[in-house]
């Protein structure tokens, strides 16, 4: 599997973050895994980074329903980041939401990938092969 420098997990559920981090680490998918408990924590981190930072995630796995700043509010704020800060970065929704509108809302904000929880090795592999192979 392709190896990334850094992956960010944005989710308020501790069990989700713990298991996803361990899955990513066990498959050797990324050198670093960052955890943010809501969109605001993540956007604060992203807004301080430049293109060369080792803590700039190449892949962001984003939940929708979170306190303080949810996934859609994060995407609205994310859009305002500089192109340099967002360069070569893929945001994937990872949610247990059954709301039919959520996928459409994500697409409206430019998100092409929408995964259902739980994250699996196969899902991860598909994303990596699609966006990072070669």
């Amino acid at each position, binding site marked *: 599997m392709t190896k990334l420098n850094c992956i960010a997990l944005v989710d*308020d*559920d501790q069990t989700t973050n713990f*298991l996803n981090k361990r899955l990513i680490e066990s498959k050797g998918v990324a050198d670093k895994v960052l955890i943010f408990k809501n969109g605001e924590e993540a956007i604060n981190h992203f807004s301080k980074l430049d293109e060369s930072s080792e803590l700039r995630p190449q892949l962001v796995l984003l939940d929708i329903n979170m306190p303080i700043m949810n996934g859609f509010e994060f995407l609205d704020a994310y859009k305002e980041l500089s192109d340099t800060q967002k360069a070569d970065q893929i945001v994937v929704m990872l949610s247990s939401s*059954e709301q039919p509108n959520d996928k459409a809302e994500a697409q409206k904000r430019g998100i092409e990938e929408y995964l259902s929880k739980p994250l699996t090795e196969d899902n991860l592999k598909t994303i990596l092969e699609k966006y990072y192979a070669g």
Partner: protein
Amino acid sequence: MLDKTIVDQYDPEVFKEALGIFIPDSTEVLSKIDNSKDHETLTSWAHRIKGSYLMIGAKGVADLALLIERSQSFEEGKSHVAELKSAHERLLSFLKTSYQIEG
């Protein structure tokens, strides 16, 4: 009770460690579901706990939380809470026995 394809993704010790997070966290969320005073709060916590159940492969219990999340009224949502609490207790009992978790 658990989806083996999900559980088997993780090292058994890692999964057991995750249960050490899941058990107190989900129990607290369940209490918030039980004490919810309005439909929005109720469905929001139901969604949250559903995600936790799915992460550990407890799809059957997640489906009960989904019934609350999809409810059209506070009363309808509340009508499924007792069943969810009962299923949650059975799940915890199973997890504690299967993974030799104390408490």
